């Protein structure tokens, strides 16, 4: 009778178990993040209740923590950033996929990579010392929006490119065969096909813009209590507040800042989830056709 049992099955199983544990780390860490920072933010919620989210006054000295201006600031700067970045990113993505001859495409990709590779703190430094000081643009929602726009352009562009490239060549050829100009072809074949995915790409950019801390912290102006549509006003955003006020915060203050982080966490996760879902669905639909 042949002995066909394995000797090294034990090592094999251990390896599989180790690999599974490593994969499970992702879930563990995310779960831990959610639990621990929520817990640490409890003190301020006990103090302010839901007024934390609706209050407009943020005054650590008085123990008052109303986060609304910062939520507004985050949203406002993100919208400014998107307004600036999306047309540029789309234009760039369309250029790279529809207009550029293959020889130029490679350098364009490198350009994007270089832009994405500059650390955000360096952009922040440039923003503070050059953009706001030297060019005298000051610190404001607008300045922050500009810096954020520069930083999210690479991600929106590269994702848009991927989505656009799934346009079936048949659709494009069909439009061209009807005598359409290049722009008309883009409108007829590329946009309808990619619209969903592009929305997703933009939303991912939105998520990035909202979470970007350092650059915003440096140029947004750190003003309190401003809910305004005046983009030139100094303002504040959630991540900026956390970064700027942490150093000298007492315990309750710290828990308030952590509460801001929880809020930011939830918002960015929701946005990213939606965005990823939209992009994936659009890509799948694209490949199906």
């Amino acid at each position, binding site marked *: 009778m042949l002995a066909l049992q394995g000797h090294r099955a034990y090592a094999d199983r251990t390896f599989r178990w180790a690999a599974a544990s490593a994969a499970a780390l992702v*879930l563990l860490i995310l779960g831990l993040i959610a639990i621990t920072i929520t817990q640490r933010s409890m003190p301020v919620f006990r103090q302010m209740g839901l007024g934390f989210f609706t209050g407009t006054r943020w005054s650590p000295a008085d123990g008052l923590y109303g986060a609304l201006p910062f939520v507004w600031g985050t949203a406002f700067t993100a919208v400014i950033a998107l307004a600036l970045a999306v047309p540029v*990113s789309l234009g760039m993505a369309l250029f790279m996929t529809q207009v550029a001859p293959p020889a130029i495409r490679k350098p364009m990709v490198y350009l994007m990579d270089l832009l994405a590779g500059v650390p*955000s703190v360096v952009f922040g430094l440039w923003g503070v010392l050059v953009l706001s000081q030297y060019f005298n643009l000051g610190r404001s929602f607008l300045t922050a929006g500009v810096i954020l726009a520069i930083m999210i352009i690479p991600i929106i562009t590269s994702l848009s490119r991927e989505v656009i490239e799934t346009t079936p060549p048949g659709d494009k050829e069909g439009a061209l065969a009807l005598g359409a100009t290049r722009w008309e072809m883009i409108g007829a074949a590329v946009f309808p096909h990619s619209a969903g995915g592009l929305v997703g790409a933009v939303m991912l950019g939105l998520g990035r813009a909202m979470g970007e801390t*350092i650059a915003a912290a440096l140029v947004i102006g750190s003003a309190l209590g401003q809910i305004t549509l005046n983009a030139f006003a100094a303002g504040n955003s959630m991540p900026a507040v956390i970064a700027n006020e942490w150093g000298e915060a007492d315990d309750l203050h710290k828990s308030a800042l952590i509460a801001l982080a929880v809020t930011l966490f939830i918002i960015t996760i929701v946005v*990213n989830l939606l965005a990823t879902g939209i992009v994936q669905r659009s890509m799948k639909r694209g490949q199906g056709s």
Partner: protein
Amino acid sequence: MIELAETVTSGAPPDLTAKRSWRSVKSATMTGLMVAAVFVVALPLVAVVWSVLGRGLAVAFRGFPDFFIQEIPSVARRAGPGMGPAILGTLLVTGAATLIAVPLGVLGAVYLHEYGVGNRFSRLVRFMATVMTGVPSIVMGLFIYVVWTLRFGYSAFGGSLALACLMLPVVIGATEQMLKLVPHHLREASYALGTSKSRTILTVVLPAALPGIVSGSLLAVARAAGETAPLLFAVGAATEYNPHLFEEANTALSIQIFGNATSSFVAAQDRAWGAALTLVLLTFLITLVARVFTARIASRR
């Protein structure tokens, strides 16, 4: 009856020259806008590089290698070098983070692609990894503050943990991409020789996917080296050299840049530019090496 174009019926040679019309003008304008977009993108990049080079070169290379070796002046207004401790700090923190994140990330991706393809656990992990890449780095920093710094104080290692959490999903994603590219028939050949699955992964699959894994990981490292927010809550801002990973506050280039950017002293600002140049050079170098590996994969095919 359908009217045929005049050129077909008239018998004269067809006129195929380009026509000027609002359609073609519109298309040309749009194309022009697209090209303009490229310049708009290039502009800030050029501007930043210009500033960093312009203001940083003088600071960083005056009296070389002073800037890279000397300690940070503890009084901000004092002019002069250096950023030595920050450079060491960045290397320590990023290096340790890499040692944690890359093996774990590769192992995790191995599970996702080799063992658990399609099962619910894998799909959940993959999804959550994507979610994790979107977690703002400041949230990660505060997380580490709560679980580590509060308990163990400031140290380089705390920063490494934070960066490792940021890098992990990126490494998993990149590795899984590379594993997908390893042709299945290589695995089959190995199984047919009576090799166990774990051994097949370690001796056939991973070596085949290695250049791509290295390149993807290096890109994650380059990004991590530039992170500031997570380090603010874990590492501290020392001015002296601290080669110890686990003890005592440390510092890093990104922290120094952030701190000095808002300083009103020109000397501190100068040091910030020098540090920025150093950081950009470092990330550029790492990215370059990553590209070399990518090229190596391309040449092999």
